[in-house]
């Protein structure tokens, strides 16, 4: 056993999950702030420890921006009563949040978030079939939601669970098909190879824009975000599949949603926006020094955050789809479109070669 | 004092019926009705004909139990009679119906006798206009005190103002002001400004009570109701004038500013202050009794009740009511106490038990006690409560259910005659257990020394007294306003009373725990509700044969005594 590999993998996993949770927490703050601005409000601006205001220059800003809101939210979730309603399937009810959050966390294993640092590749598992792994894991996410809806023994969660099972399975198909052109063009299923190809030839979003659009919209649907948040539609289903949940169990669903969003934007960054590369200042080559390695990680995170902002922005702009419209869009528009996209790409590639 | 107000005793001789039409509906009306005071037949009036088919004619001064005065003019109606030709034969219309000659002038419905073929119109535009006019005149000097008037909510001026009133007064001159809050008698407050001079109170106290204490003085707008100089309006029926006063001129001192009438829950009940058993309505709110009002029952009390009975409600809400079950002077619970009592009674030999019941208890409770009496061949009796009566309503016997105690076999014709026998039984040691219900026996020949000789003294009562303090087992009971049941009055009328308020603390209706006790001791069962209990009793007690709880209705039924 290669102890070196184990130790570095554990470190990478720990750091990646830590960063993931931190980003998820602050994504919630971003969500609330952006929604507030779009709605002519201020948003959370109160939470700050008392001593913050004594910090020179930064103090007033930190106290007024709600920087500590995620901490307060987390604390609140932990301190709330963990209530289990009567009549639920206890075992399923307890497993469901875990089933929901685990896939959303392990899916980031194959995403290269940087080039190399020393001799370590900045990816937890550099799989040859990274994209297949991703789709395999992402499909598991639906079980958490369906299980939650079923276990709660209550009609709204049940409806939410049913909706999500159909929705997520439908959009997985168009999502999977939408990325095939990307790999046809890049010629590899390994995500690091896809990035390397983009460093050489330019971002894939230019070569396969239709793929990107389908992937983006399917990504909204897969992460249960507006305009596809039917499983948790507040106005119709109270809280959807997590209606009966409270405290930290509810928070896990919440976290899973944002982790899914991070995974989706991470995938998008990798597949369409060149991952950790930038096409100038030599940043498209694997790093020689630790400084450049860190800069490349930051580039990856910046691209991801920009895409997440789009996710959030879109949420506060669109009304929810009706269920039949959702199915219509998924099966009758995106699936044929994705098939045509594959064929056209394949034909063009064949013609060029 | 005048003739009795009850009319049930002698069946009215058949009277001729004539046909009249009220608002187009043809009805048959007896030509004469008995006079409310003398009982002699007098011609039926239009308002009585209308009342037969529930056509409401607004009125202030008319009262079915009082002589007609006809001074308020509110009951003006239009009418017509069959037109007669020169040959004194009715003129017929083309379709053969008699032609009706409509009277050119309206008439007051309360004083105009009906005649055959008469047609009465109570809802024509002219009648409505007349009512509006009369009401506007009545309100000219009325102070509109409604926010501070106790009558508000049951005031005929208010009710008819809704139907026929103007939205604003056209009277710009200052109103005539008369004395307010006049102390008319020990129980009555008079507000002369509110008085509409209908003279109902004057007629009531003169013709029904025979105490000619009230009158109207001064002239015109300055007409004022007052008591005769030097006389106080203090007979025992004064508070009835508060009931019949259509406005807030006469109000009760006892009820003054206590509660607004629209909050009061009205429960049909029976007065327990004497053997007459006047029908009453208990006005209660939030488990507190606020007042009694008489309820019309022509077989018992007509529309009246005496002041002493009416004001005898305050003990129901007394603070020192018995609230806890006690066992050897320690607080206990029903189950434990009843089980122990049942156990002791089961092993008691025949003849060692005596029962003192109360003629203030309901028939059902007395009957359950008589079952215990039969089991032990026990001596039993009750306590007589005699005082002075009057000729109108107040009975000399102040027990509400003397006849019930007799009919159920608790005591015999001479109430209280067995008590010395019980006393000697206790002192000789033959009687070891005494069951006392609702009476303080220390005042009736069974002193504390005698009670001290008993092995078991079981007492149930409502208020604490010397006997309850000596009890080995004390079972808190309910006032009549807190339970349901029946009383048999002096004339043998069996009447229901209903529950108005919840009993305090742990107190339970006596029949409830007596039933448990009887079941435990004798094994007889089959009556878990008061309805079932009454029906069971009607089967077993010969005097109540054929009665059912539902059949009693609101006004009761008379049994032979």
């Amino acid at each position, binding site marked *: 056993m290669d102890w070196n590999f184990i130790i570095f993998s554990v470190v990478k996993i720990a750091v990646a999950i830590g960063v993931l949770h931190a980003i998820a927490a602050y994504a919630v703050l971003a969500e609330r702030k952006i929604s507030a601005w779009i709605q002519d409000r201020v948003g959370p601006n109160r939470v700050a420890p008392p001593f913050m205001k004594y910090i020179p220059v930064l103090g007033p800003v930190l106290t007024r921006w709600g920087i500590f809101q995620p901490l307060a939210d987390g604390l609140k979730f932990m301190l709330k009563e963990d209530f289990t309603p009567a009549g639920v399937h206890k075992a399923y009810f307890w497993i469901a949040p875990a089933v929901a959050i685990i896939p959303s966390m392990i899916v980031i294993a194959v995403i290269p978030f940087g080039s190399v640092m020393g001799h370590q590749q900045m990816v937890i598992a550099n799989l040859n079939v990274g994209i297949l792994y991703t789709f395999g894991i992402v499909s598991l996410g639906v079980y958490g939601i369906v299980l939650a809806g079923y276990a709660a023994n209550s009609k709204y969660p049940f409806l939410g669970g049913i909706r999500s099972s159909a929705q997520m399975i439908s959009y997985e198909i168009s999502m999977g098909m939408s990325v095939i052109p990307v790999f046809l063009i890049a010629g590899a299923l390994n995500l690091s190879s896809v990035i390397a190809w983009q460093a050489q030839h330019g971002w894939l979003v230019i070569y396969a824009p239709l793929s990107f659009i389908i992937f983006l919209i399917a990504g909204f649907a897969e992460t249960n975000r507006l305009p596809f948040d039917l499983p948790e539609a507040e106005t119709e289903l109270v809280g959807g599949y997590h209606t009966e949940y409270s405290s930290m169990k509810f928070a896990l669903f919440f976290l899973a949603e944002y982790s899914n969003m991070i995974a989706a934007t991470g995938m998008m960054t990798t597949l369409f926006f060149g991952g950790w590369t930038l096409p100038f200042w030599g940043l498209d080559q694997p790093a020689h020094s630790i400084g450049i390695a860190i800069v490349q990680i930051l580039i990856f995170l910046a691209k991801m955050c920009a895409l997440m902002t789009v996710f959030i922005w879109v949420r506060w702009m669109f009304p929810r789809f009706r269920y039949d419209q959702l199915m219509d869009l998924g099966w009758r528009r995106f699936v044929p479109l994705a098939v045509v996209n594959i064929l056209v790409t394949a034909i063009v590639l064949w013609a060029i070669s | 004092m005048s003739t009795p107000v009850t009319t049930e005793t002698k069946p009215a001789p058949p009277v001729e019926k004539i046909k009249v039409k009220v608002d187009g509906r043809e009805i048959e009306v007896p030509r004469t009705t008995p006079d409310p005071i003398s009982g002699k037949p007098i011609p039926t009036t239009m308002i009585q004909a209308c009342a037969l088919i529930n056509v409401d004619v607004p009125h202030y001064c008319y009262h079915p139990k009082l002589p007609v005065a006809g001074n308020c003019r509110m009951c003006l109606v239009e009418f017509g009679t069959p037109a007669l030709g020169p040959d004194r034969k009715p003129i017929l219309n083309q379709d053969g119906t008699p032609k009706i000659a409509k009277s050119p002038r309206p008439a007051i419905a309360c004083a105009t006798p009906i005649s055959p073929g008469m047609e009465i119109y109570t809802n024509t535009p002219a009648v409505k206009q007349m009512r509006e006019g009369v009401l506007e005149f009545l309100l000219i000097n009325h102070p509109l005190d409604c926010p501070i008037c106790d009558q508000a909510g049951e005031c005929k001026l208010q009710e008819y103002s809704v139907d026929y009133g103007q939205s604003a007064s056209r009277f710009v001159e200052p109103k005539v002001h008369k004395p*307010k809050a006049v102390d008319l008698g020990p129980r009555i407050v008079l507000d002369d400004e509110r008085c509409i001079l209908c003279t109902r109170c004057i007629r009531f106290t003169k013709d029904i009570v025979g105490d000619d204490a009230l009158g109207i003085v001064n002239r015109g707008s300055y007409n004022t109701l007052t008591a005769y100089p030097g006389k106080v309006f203090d007979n025992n029926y004064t508070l009835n004038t508060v009931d019949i006063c259509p406005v807030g001129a006469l109000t009760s001192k006892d009820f*003054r500013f206590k509660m*607004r009438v629209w909050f009061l829950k009205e429960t049909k009940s029976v007065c327990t202050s004497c053997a007459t058993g006047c029908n009453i309505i208990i006005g209660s709110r939030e488990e507190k009794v606020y007042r009694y009002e008489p309820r019309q029952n022509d077989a018992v009390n007509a529309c009246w009740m005496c002041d002493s009975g009416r004001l005898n409600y305050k003990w129901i809400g007394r603070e020192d009511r018995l609230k806890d079950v006690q066992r050897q002077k320690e607080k206990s619970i029903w189950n434990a106490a009843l089980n122990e009592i049942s156990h002791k009674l089961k092993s008691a030999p025949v003849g060692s038990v005596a029962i003192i019941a109360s003629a203030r208890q309901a028939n059902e409770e007395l009957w359950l006690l008589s079952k215990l009496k039969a089991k032990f061949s026990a001596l039993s009796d009750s306590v007589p409560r005699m005082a002075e009566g009057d000729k109108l309503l107040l009975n000399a016997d102040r027990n509400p259910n003397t006849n019930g105690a007799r009919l159920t076999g608790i005591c015999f014709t001479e109430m209280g005659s067995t008590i010395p026998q019980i006393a000697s039984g206790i002192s000789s040691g033959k009687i070891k257990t005494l069951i006392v219900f609702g009476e303080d026996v220390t005042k009736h020949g069974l002193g504390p020394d005698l009670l001290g000789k008993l092995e078991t003294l079981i007492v149930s009562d409502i208020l604490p007294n010397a006997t309850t303090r000596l009890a080995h087992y004390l079972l808190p009971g309910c006032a009549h306003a807190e339970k349901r049941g029946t009383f048999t009055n002096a004339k043998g009328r069996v009447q229901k009373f209903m529950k108005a308020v919840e009993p305090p603390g742990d107190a339970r209706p006596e029949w409830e725990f007596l039933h448990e006790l009887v079941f435990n001791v004798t094994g007889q069962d089959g009556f878990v509700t008061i309805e079932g209990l009454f029906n069971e009793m009607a089967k077993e007690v010969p005097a109540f044969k054929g009665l059912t709880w539902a059949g009693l209705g609101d006004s009761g039924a008379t049994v032979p005594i």
Partner: protein
Amino acid sequence: MIVNRRPLTFWEKLYLPAIMGGLKVTMRHAWRTLFAGKKVTMEYPEQKWAVPPDYRGAPYLVRDQDGSTKCVSCQLCEFVCPPKAIKIIPPGPAGQIADRANAEKMPREFEINMLRCIYCGMCQEVCPEEAIFLLKDYSITGQSRQELVFNKEKLLALGGVHPGIQKWKHKAEEAKEQENFPVKV
């Protein structure tokens, strides 16, 4: 009237113009809020709302211009109150008489449970004496339930003076003018 739905053009069916329009609107609002300071909310405890003159806040009892209690405890507000927030104890036969001539009575106790009150204003509407008004207090807070049951003294203190036609005083004056009243009873 039946309005036929116009069939969408191909351009509209793409949804893209609508999406772009939506993005534009939301972006404009976010921009204005962030950089032009055009937010519509207030920061409540520091910034307070200017209550409009006819605002209906908490109901309080008022006094007339002579400082007398206007309420005569007719209990109409208690009757009409939909959430049963008002409880009045009338003076009773031996109770305290009103603190002004002719009114004959005023409440012995008058309680409004501010936790129950729904600010519907029915008490004000039904009051024949103009004695209860919904004033401008909108943030009623306290440490306990009992603290929020306002009694007569508190309600009168909070309500202040509200001048109006003095019906009972007017009646008393009118009666005084008729002192040569011919009744001697």
